[in-house]
């Protein structure tokens, strides 16, 4: 098992190298330069380029970046002067990750419960209502929902604060809901269909024939078996949530990493683009690794090797 995890981590590093390479050269194709202020004299521009190492040949820039990245040095932001990228990410990623983790827990737990309820009430009213809710949850974009939540609970009935971060837990409630609805809806639908399949399986028939109650069957047999495919869904979902949502962070004025990533692209802030891309890629692969490990724990038929 540990050998397997080490091997997977090795692959993770190799994949990151490929991601860095692809992103680095793709950025060179982008039109424009980071320093397009018309007031800059050619001398000043040359000075700036030299400061950031952009005057070197491309292969040397690439090598320098790789060597730096290997040492944990992701360069200095062009946009926020003298701010190392690692520091920028280090400040902003925890904010996004905390909010994302909160939304993930709320969304997945709600989805697991609603999916099971829906499956046990297959084709009756409760299932119908949950079906409509989950379809809405999937189709309404989170930023629209965010704005509606701000209007309802910040303006119409001002119960929760609508912006800010780090002062109180209540600030996190609205953005958490806005972020959690879509994962909750997706999980609900997935759990429902998996649970229905599991409840009609032979081993559930056998469990019924043992005299177990519906509740015992769901808790002891159906949940565990339905979780196996659901886990594969949660991995990428977690990666997406933990790395922040640009629009939700914008609406609720949350100083997360999502906002920073988007702003770095028009301003050609190469080191920040690179840094955030690496973080996203690493997070996704790490979550998939965690998912695989969890799957092996839940499903005895899966062996990690």
């Amino acid at each position, binding site marked *: 098992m540990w050998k397997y995890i080490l091997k997977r981590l090795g692959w993770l590093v190799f994949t990151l190298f490929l991601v860095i390479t692809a992103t680095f050269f793709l950025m060179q194709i982008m039109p424009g330069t980071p320093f397009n202020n018309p007031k800059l004299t050619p001398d000043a521009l040359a000075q700036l380029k030299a400061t950031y190492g952009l005057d070197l040949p491309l292969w040397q820039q690439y090598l320098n970046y790789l060597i730096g990245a290997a040492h944990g040095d992701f360069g200095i932001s062009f946009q926020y002067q003298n701010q190392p990228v690692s520091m920028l990410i280090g400040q902003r990623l925890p904010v996004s990750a905390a909010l994302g983790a909160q939304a993930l827990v709320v969304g997945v737990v709600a989805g697991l419960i609603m999916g099971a309820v829906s499956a046990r009430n297959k084709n009756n009213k409760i299932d119908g209502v949950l079906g409509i809710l989950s379809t809405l949850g999937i189709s309404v974009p989170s930023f629209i929902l965010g704005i509606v939540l701000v209007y309802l609970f910040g303006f119409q009935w001002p119960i929760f604060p609508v912006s800010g971060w780090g002062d109180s837990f209540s600030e996190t409630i609205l953005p958490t809901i806005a972020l959690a609805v879509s994962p909750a809806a997706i999980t609900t639908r997935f759990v429902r269909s998996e649970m229905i399949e599991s409840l009609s399986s032979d081993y559930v028939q*056998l469990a019924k024939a043992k005299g177990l109650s519906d509740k015992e069957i769901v808790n002891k047999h159906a949940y565990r078996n339905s979780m196996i495919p659901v886990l594969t869904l949660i991995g990428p979902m977690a990666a997406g949530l933990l790395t922040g949502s640009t629009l939700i962070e914008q609406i609720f004025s949350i100083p997360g990493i999502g906002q920073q990533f988007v702003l770095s692209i028009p301003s050609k802030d190469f080191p920040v683009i690179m840094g955030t891309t690496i973080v996203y890629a690493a997070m996704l692969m790490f979550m998939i690794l965690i998912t695989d490990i969890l799957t092996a724990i839940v499903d005895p038929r899966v062996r990690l090797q």
Partner: protein
Amino acid sequence: MSNPILKVENLHVNFNTYAGTVQAIRDVSFDLNKGETLAIVGESGSGKSVTTKTLMGLNAKNASIPDNSRLLFKDRNLLDLTEEEWQSVRGNEIAMIFQDPMTSLDPTMKIGMQIAEPLMKHREMKKEDALARALELMQGVGIPNAEEHINDYPHQWSGGMRQRAVVAIALAADPEILIADEPTTALDVTIQAQILTLMKKLQRETSSSIIFITHDLGVVAGMADRVAVMYAGKIVEYGTVDEIFFNPQHPYTWGLLNSMPTTDTAVGTLEAIPGTPPDLLEPPKGDAFAPRNAFALAIDSKEEPPFFKVSDTHYAATWLLDERAPKVTPPAQIQKRWARWQEIQGQEA
């Protein structure tokens, strides 16, 4: 012989579907005596499996059972039970062995735990005690080195071993009635024999009654004390195993026995009953078997035959037994069986 532990009276089971009402069981009555094995045979769709599911209270939600149907077990009508009362019957007083061992065990639960589950439920045993008893049960059903395998998961076991585990689960709470729904169909022949021998042995040890559902007459001959033949949701003939095998009266029973190859069967020939069973959405008038029956009489398409008594233990629902019916000559193989029956009777007399 008449010490019935279970009496099924006038059982009807209907399924309400979009296409209409499917009359899956149409007036079935039988007794099950203590310690005996009753085989219910018939082809697919004859209502064997619905009968067993009804006995376990496990029918689909769209099933409806009329009020005059009765399943009498220990002074109560099982059809009056609430779901909670059913739960105390299932796996406890009446247990079931399922058909396919490859799918009927939970792939994510340790086998020992799956055997212990009914004990924890019905005997209120603690987990450790239940697992200790599960180990004994595993040894009882012939699992080698059971103590090493109690924490195995189903995928680590072969089909035959898994079916032994399924048997152990059914026997865990010492049920009075064991329902075996084609328990060997999914197994290869050598393993089949092992499982059947095991069931016989365990039945002798526990003196439980078995309802054995199968379409395999070869298995019936070795296992059953009595046989009920089902067709289109009805029992058409029932009697002791010898009566059914050597003195069959219903043309459907003839057909079933005829389609079983014997040592006399010419190489390359396999007899079959022509046609398919009727649609139970609209069951035919009269004898449901008439359209497939080479010996059908005119009355068969008009009126349903009642049970005619052949002996105290043997009844058949065919107009051929009416005194007004013409004498028919059954297929050659059946005549041979009848001749053998005469010999047996002669020896006994």
